[in-house]
């Protein structure tokens, strides 16, 4: 009886572990390997990572792709602008999401869950479609331009689509629920008697908010920020559909190198760069979450 349970136990651990090794760890290692080889025509479009010579494997690694990453302004700019766009989008999302989360957490108990559900509902509809919806609104004969033209506020259509502005809008729009939820979670658990105590001690509402509520809600703000910033770093669809030719984001650059230029090794090097870029805030978030769990 005990042996049976042990066999079942090893299966339960073994199956997902094997899957994770094969489909998560191994692929990442392969990306690393391919980032160190050269592009060539043919299939597969890269030189082999190691060859067998008289029974022993020989590695052919070269850092050419990485040298290119650091020397060519395009790639450096792409990394920097990805960080910039992701960060500013996250801040904008914060300014919209915080008041919403606050309002919901102060609402009546019975309406809170429906209100939250309404925030989360868009997430369940297609990401692609939601981003696509903005093309219809922002383009030159889209909703906004039509309205502005009709009311005589402008003479020629504003270039709203295919701009960095549109990309920011797209990212904020798509990831807003991820900012609202963590902030709400923290605010909901807040003991509102803190505010009452502050009022009792003579603090006016705004001051009480700044000195009591805001500091206490920072863990949620931090979590929400990272939940928007991290995926935004590597975003592809939003910059592709809403961005212009000069909107540089790493996800898009990677895609172009891979599909248009067929330079798999360079794309892999970009991928490794992106991975490193994402790992920094991601490990930060894990540490904060661990501390939160322990608390």
């Amino acid at each position: 009886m005990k042996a049976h349970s042990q066999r079942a136990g090893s299966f339960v651990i073994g199956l997902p572990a094997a899957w994770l090794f094969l489909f998560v760890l191994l692929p990442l290692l392969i990306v690393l390997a391919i980032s160190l080889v050269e592009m060539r025509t043919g299939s597969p479009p890269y030189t082999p990572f190691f060859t067998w010579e008289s029974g022993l494997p020989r590695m052919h690694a070269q850092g050419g792709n990485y040298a290119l990453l650091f020397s060519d302004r395009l790639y450096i700019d792409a990394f920097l602008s990805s960080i910039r766009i992701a960060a500013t989008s996250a801040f904008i999302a914060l300014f919209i999401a915080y008041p919403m989360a606050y309002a919901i957490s102060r609402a009546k108990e019975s309406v809170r869950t429906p209100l939250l559900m309404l925030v989360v509902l868009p997430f369940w509809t297609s990401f692609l479609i939601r981003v696509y919806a903005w093309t219809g609104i922002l383009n030159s004969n889209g909703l906004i331009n039509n309205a502005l033209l009709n009311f005589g506020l402008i003479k020629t259509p504003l270039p709203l689509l295919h701009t960095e502005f549109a990309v920011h809008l797209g990212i904020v729009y798509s990831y807003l629920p991820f900012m609202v939820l963590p902030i709400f979670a923290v605010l909901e658990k807040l003991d509102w008697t803190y505010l009452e105590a502050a009022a009792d001690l003579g603090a006016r509402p705004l001051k009480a908010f700044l000195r009591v509520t805001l500091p206490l809600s920072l863990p949620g703000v931090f979590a929400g920020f990272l939940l928007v910033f991290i995926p935004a770093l590597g975003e592809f669809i939003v910059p592709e559909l809403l961005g212009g030719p000069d909107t540089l984001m790493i996800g898009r650059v990677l895609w172009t190198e891979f599909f248009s230029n067929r330079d798999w090794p360079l794309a892999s090097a970009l991928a490794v760069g992106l991975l490193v870029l994402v790992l920094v805030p991601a490990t930060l978030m894990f540490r904060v979450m661990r501390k939160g769990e322990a608390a």
Partner: protein
Amino acid sequence: MKNRSAFALSVLAFGYAFLYVPIAILIIYSFNDSRLVTVWSHFSTRWYGELFRNAQIGDALWLSLRVAAASATASVVLGTCAAFAMRRMRSLAARGAFEALVTTPLILPEVLTGLSLLLLFVFLGETIGWPGQRGAVTIGLAHITFGMAYATVVIRARLSQLDPALEEAAADLGATPSRTFLRVTLPLLTPAIFAAWLLAFTLSLDDVVIASFVTGPGATTLPLVIFSSVRLGVSPQINALATLLVLSAACLILIATLVLRREERRMQAAKE
């Protein structure tokens, strides 16, 4: 006090408007007769008619539904195993590594996941001869990989909420570990498993980036069709399709939420 509620109301109104107006516009313009999508002429359902006659979209939808259903099911099975595995593991190091790997697909940008899986399939193709042709199978495997990550998070959360005494009581009453799992743990996990399946299904149905990397000739999923279409600009048929997708997703979520809330209430009351 009045100031506060006025402020709160306006904030919420703006927020929800921001979230829903684009979707509403999509829906409204799907009934616009004019081919110039954003110039309103008159109400018409012709685009829906054209949509239903569109074989390419029909095939893509059917493929996507099958891939999504299959990968969601596999994701949930693997996710349940992973959730239990993490509960069982004694060694802190092994559990940490496992946990890191399980949550990696959640953090990794899609382009990275897509690229890495494609390179894996190419590598496997070169070394062991499989997969020869990339297509629905490789898309499915990729979707299972990230679906499993989400499923694990959802199921693990529910598992940790269960009163450990319940499984102990089952054992005390004579149930072996497998009987305990079947008669007590699994029924109590059902809402979470259901939610995880729905989540994995939705994510699979929506995936563009990863599918683009790992697909092959003949395997065009619905998102891929939509993406190539919208890259060229706004399309009225896509509006109609988008409306249908949004409305069906909304219905599904409403039903799921109602079901899950009923289960939540029951579990909460039982705990007190």
